[in-house]
């Protein structure tokens, strides 16, 4: 706005004097555009910003019968209760651990897969592989979770039949505290690794082919070409996706956990989103779980803003 007014101040007074009618003219000429934004603004205020204001119930003892205004204030009481409970540390630990495992084991997979795909010469073969690898991304967690549970079933599942063929005792993958997170991460890779290659492949196709030529003339092996040309070429894509991933550290998607978890593994599988759902909506502890939700959103906000800043300081293009 200020940059807009700067040049006009330099111009003759006539323009300044005609400012108000100019605005009216601008408005009437563009009234269709402004009219379109009215419902959008109402939507944002009602369904996006009003719930943010609704977070104040984290500082109250909310009861449906009293309403938001009628409920009594408790200050930080809900947070004190939260931080004093063992449940809080369990769900926080599980949330962070599952995200950490994801970052270490799942995040690099699409990068590796994209590098392999990028080396495929035959265009039709590459295209076919890509299209097949993308499929799980479009299937819901409920269906995928159900398939995972069936495949890993100790009695009839395919994986355990295979183990049996090698003389290994059946493993209760979904009921074991070690194997459940493993199954969780692997199923996440199954769903998203293929689709995750799209952005990397796009970045790779933008790499100047003469760089590869030059590397080849210098006698660089394929491995060195990947290291010195391909990887630097997708560096900013990796950076951006890394920010987004770290920004999600406090959040494990509800649907994946909810479909894969069961009572035997609650101690490793209960995460913030499922805890808020069961305690908040099933057990009606509204204020208590809102306090947890608010804690989660604030940490997530701090995380993404600071990671964005770090990435920018490193000379990469940030998110905003």
């Amino acid at each position, binding site marked *: 706005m200020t940059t807009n007014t700067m040049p006009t101040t330099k111009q003759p007074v006539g323009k300044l004097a005609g400012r108000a009618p100019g605005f009216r003219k601008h408005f009437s000429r*563009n009234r*269709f*555009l*402004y009219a*379109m*934004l009215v419902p*959008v*603004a109402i*939507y*944002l205020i009602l*369904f*996006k*910003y*009003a*719930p943010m204001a*609704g*977070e104040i*119930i984290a500082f109250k003892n909310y009861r449906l019968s009293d309403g938001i205004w009628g409920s009594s204030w408790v200050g930080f009481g809900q947070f004190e209760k939260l931080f004093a409970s063992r449940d809080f540390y369990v769900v926080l630990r599980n949330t962070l651990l599952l995200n950490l495992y994801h970052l270490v084991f799942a995040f690099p997979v699409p990068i590796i897969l994209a590098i*392999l795909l990028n080396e495929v010469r035959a265009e039709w073969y590459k295209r076919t*592989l890509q*299209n*097949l*690898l993308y*499929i799980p991304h*479009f*299937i*819901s*967690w409920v*269906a995928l979770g*159900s*398939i*995972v549970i*069936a495949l890993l*079933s*100790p*009695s*009839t*599942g*395919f994986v355990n*039949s295979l183990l049996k063929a090698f003389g290994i005792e*059946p493993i*209760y993958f*979904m009921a074991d505290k070690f194997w459940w997170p493993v199954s969780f991460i692997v199923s996440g890779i*199954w769903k998203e690794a293929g689709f995750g290659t*799209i*952005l990397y492949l796009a970045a790779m196709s933008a790499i100047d082919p003469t760089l590869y030529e030059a590397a080849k003339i210098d006698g660089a092996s394929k491995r060195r070409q990947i290291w010195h040309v391909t990887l630097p070429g997708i560096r900013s894509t990796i950076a*951006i996706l890394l920010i987004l991933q770290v920004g999600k550290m406090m959040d494990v998607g509800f*649907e994946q956990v909810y*479909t894969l978890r069961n009572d035997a593994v609650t101690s490793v599988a209960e995460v913030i989103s499922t805890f808020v*759902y069961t305690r*908040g909506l099933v057990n009606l502890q509204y204020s208590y*779980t809102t306090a947890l*939700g608010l804690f*989660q*959103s*604030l940490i*997530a*906000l701090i995380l993404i*803003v600071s990671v964005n800043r770090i990435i920018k300081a490193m000379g990469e293009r940030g998110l*905003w």
Partner: protein
Amino acid sequence: MVTMAKHKGGPSASARRSRRGSLARWLNNLLLALCAYATLFPFVNVIATSLSSSRAINAGEVFMWPVELNFDAYHNLIRDGQLIVAMQNTVLITVVGTALNMLFTIMAAYPLSKARLKGRGLMLMAILFTMLFSGGLIPNFLLVNSLGLVNTYWALWLPALISAYNMFVMKAFLEGLPEELEESASIDGAGEFTILTRIILPLSKPVIAALTLFYAVGWWNSYMNVLIYIRSTNKMSLMVKLYQMIDLVSSELLRGEGVTQAVITPESIRAAAVVFAILPILCVYPFLQKHFIKGVLLGSVKG
């Protein structure tokens, strides 16, 4: 002399390298084929399971092909009818939800793609902020509840009218259209509405196709919001119905006891239900995949 030696060694070394290179390429192709196989195998297995006899399933014989082929699981599902009702509900949720999404996404993205609009920066900030911070599950629920929308599909549609991310994708696309188009049309006397519907939207077909698909897949797979807001059994979506079926049998599976008494095990029925839920997507996918990919790339342009 040194260069001479290098030249002499050249051909044989490069031949060795290219032979090693072609072996590496062959291994790479094979490895990727195995990845694709591993990705698809679970789907093939679930389809095979849905068509196999309970004896074969319990004996762990089903691999990629139905064993003792029969359609009993599907007959049962269709006779039961609940899944059909759920599927009809999901179609309704998807069609109306996607239409509303597109309408509102265009209504937000088109004006906001015009640099001349006053207050545009503020509005864009307000939308960006919703991507970074949100009101959370409980306040959202209380809002929807106080509006009296619980157990109606409006509780699903209204809070999700615009995906901020998709709105930014659309806006970036519209900003890429040449401005002269609009100028020349307005000189010809076309109103804003005509310009939007006759000129801008037809040119935006790629982004409209991509976003429609993203929204539609989202609605088809919608689960958590239905779980939260919909109470009546006859209004349930396909995915919630499917989850209830898994939940009923998963405890048995965990204990490792196949249900052997029943003629048709819950497992084959569940497999059939999964096939029911994923088949529509698998069927349309080959025809629409290029739009999906285009959509992702459109989004990455302005990140």
